[in-house]
C-alpha cells in the first residue's frame, strides 16, 4: 500500500468507490461483531416486513456497517502512516440491501501546521440521494526533508 503524504494532498482531491452491500454482507458484519439477535432486535436489517414498518423500502444495512464502510474508504486512502482522528456521520435516509452506492470522500481543507486533512464524505445511491454524509479528519505523514 503506497504511503499518502500530506505534502501531496490538495483541496479538491476526490476518491470514490462503489459498493452494494446485501443480505450476506450484513450477516457477515453481524457475525464479525456481536450477532444479529443483539444488533437487530426489531428485525429491520433482515425482514422486509419489519423494515417497511419503520418506513424503509426493504431490509436495511445497519448504520454501524455503513459507518464502517465509509471509514474504510478514508483509512485505506490514508495508508499505513495516516491516522483517522475523527469521523462524524449523519444518517439521512435508509440504505437497503443491494442499494448500489457510490462512496465518496472529498478533501475540503488542509492544516499545514498539524498535517491534517478534512474531508467531506458521503454515500450516494442510484436515485442521486445521499443517505449518509459527514466529515472526516485525518493526520498524514510529511515527506522527509
Amino acid at each position, binding site marked *: 500500500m503506497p504511503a499518502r503524504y500530506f505534502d501531496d494532498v490538495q483541496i479538491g482531491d476526490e476518491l470514490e468507490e462503489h459498493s452494494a452491500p446485501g443480505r450476506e454482507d450484513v450477516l457477515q458484519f453481524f*457475525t464479525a461483531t456481536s450477532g444479529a439477535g443483539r444488533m437487530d432486535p426489531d428485525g429491520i436489517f433482515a425482514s422486509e416486513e419489519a423494515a417497511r414498518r419503520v*418506513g424503509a423500502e426493504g431490509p436495511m444495512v445497519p448504520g454501524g456497517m455503513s459507518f464502517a464502510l465509509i471509514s474504510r474508504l478514508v483509512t485505506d486512502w490514508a495508508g499505513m502512516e495516516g491516522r483517522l482522528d475523527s*469521523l462524524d*456521520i*449523519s*444518517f439521512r435516509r435508509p440504505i437497503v440491501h443491494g442499494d448500489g452506492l457510490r462512496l465518496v470522500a472529498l478533501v475540503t481543507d488542509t492544516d499545514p501546521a498539524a498535517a491534517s486533512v478534512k474531508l467531506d464524505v458521503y454515500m450516494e445511491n442510484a436515485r442521486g440521494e445521499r443517505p449518509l454524509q459527514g466529515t472526516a479528519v485525518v493526520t498524514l505523514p510529511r515527506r522527509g526533508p
Partner: protein
Amino acid sequence: MVTSGPNPGVRFDYDRDVIGVEVELGSVTITPQLIAGYCAAIAETNPLYTDARAAQAGPYGGLIAPPCLLPSLAFGRRGPDPKVKFGNATLFAGSRLECFAPVRAGDTITAKTQVKEIYPKTGRSGTMLFVVRRTTYSNQRGERVAASEQSLVHREV
C-alpha cells in the same frame, strides 16, 4: 417523567434520571481473529489491520484494529435506558467517532457509556426525539483510546 414537546399537544415520555449516569458496559479482548473477521466483513485492505507482518514494519510495530471496530462491538451489558415512549420507529440518526490512540491486537478494551442528552426537533417530517449516547473506550493500561457518540431518533412513520 413526561416532558412537553416543542408543539402544543406533542408530549414525550422518558426517564430523565438516566441522563449523565455513566455505566460500564464490560470489556472485550481485541484478538487477531476478531480483527480479521471484522476486516473481512468490510473488505478492509489496509495492511495495518490485515497483515501482521506488514503491520510489524509499520508505525505501530504490530497489528492494530480498524478505528470503526469499537463502536460496532457489543460489550456485554446494555447502557442506561431512558425508556422513551414516543413514535413508532427508532432509527440511527448519527454517529461520531474520535480516535485518541491505536487499539492493538491483544488489548482489552473497556467501554463506559452514558445518555448524554435527549432533545426534540421538529422538521418537515414532523416531530422527532433524539437520544444521544456517549461511550468512551479505554485499554488495559487505563489509556483512553476512543470515544463515540451515537444518536437515535424516535419518530412516527
